[in-house]
């Protein structure tokens, strides 16, 4: 199973980006192989609208079945839930710390968007 993280960097020590739609990139971590890949989200940083929707589609296309991010708005959440991606909200810290928290079962899945659109 693959997990997507919103991040401002490009490795496991990089900080988790609290923004979802307009984060710099996604780190897609494969739990079976313990390998990861980076998918750029830069095209969404300048999107006039719908950044969260596009970012959600990127995550869905990566094959990830879970997303760990800071905050997720209602439209992105709608896309992710339609595709069966579980969303987890994690506090600030590194991707690695969030991954460990997930593995330890410390991150409860969210059942709805935790912020309004355009919150940041």
């Amino acid at each position, binding site marked *: 199973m693959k997990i997507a993280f919103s991040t401002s960097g490009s490795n496991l020590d990089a900080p988790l980006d609290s923004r979802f739609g307009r984060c710099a990139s996604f780190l897609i971590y494969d739990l079976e192989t313990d390998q990861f890949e980076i998918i750029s989200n830069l095209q969404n940083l300048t999107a006039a609208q*719908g950044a969260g929707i596009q970012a959600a589609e990127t995550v869905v296309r990566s094959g990830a079945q879970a997303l760990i991010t800071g905050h997720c708005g209602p439209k992105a959440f709608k896309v992710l839930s339609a595709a069966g991606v579980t969303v987890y909200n994690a506090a600030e810290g590194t991707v690695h710390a969030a991954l460990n928290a997930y593995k330890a079962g410390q991150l409860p899945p969210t059942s709805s968007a935790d912020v309004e659109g355009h919150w940041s």
Partner: protein
Amino acid sequence: MIIAMASGKGGTGKTTLSVNLAKAFSQPVQLLDCDVEEPNDHLFLGGELLNETIVSVLVPEVDASRCDGCRACSAFCRYNAIIVPGKTALVFPELCHSCGGCIKVCPQNALKEVEQRIGLIRTWRSGGISLLQGQLDVGVASAPPLIRVLKERIEPDRIVILDAPPGTSCPVVTTLRGADLALLVTEPTPFGLHDLTIAVEMVREINLPMAVIVNRMGIGDDRVQRFCQAENIPVIAEIMDDRRIAENYSRGLAAIDHVPGFRAVMIELRDKITALCRKEA
């Protein structure tokens, strides 16, 4: 004759002047309240509500039995209003700009256009003034589609006054397009001047004749006038700051009927505007 009353800064007197100017004409006037996010011209006319029409835009609807998830629609949509998260497309109508492109590019004919309500147009009558008011539904993000439908009702042979929303964004540009004259209402303050400067740039971009009305004279300074002189923009009225005008506004009354001397000011303005429109025509 189509006159658009605009301003950069809010609260400079667009509505006050639109309503009072409409009442200064002896001929029939069409007054369009294009500030569809919070229309209020009707409060000062006290007219009779004649009718109400629902305005809708077209948005796509997905037939899940036909959609094969090919993503042609989402690749086409620059507004991210349609996306394919799984096997079928998902529409976000509030982001849709009703271009119809997704429907044309869909190879499966899985999309069709359906109506989505965005607001109302109300018609009021008060003496010789017929007021057309757009009112956007709460939660609808985009005002220009409603303003365009409202403007389809313009009868160009009549005297038409467009009361624009404040600012210089899309709803204002949509209101101003096609007008014969843009009147920029400002106040003689640094804020007024700052926003007037941006409004002038916008009107030049749309390429309309324009004139400035300085409202609330007596506050601030003369920088607005100096700016207009340097930019070669006529200042066609300087209206004194008068507490009685504000008091009437707060009671929902048109100052022209209640403040001595104000009718003469509005009639002078009316005649200058008429002359300016003739000159430009």
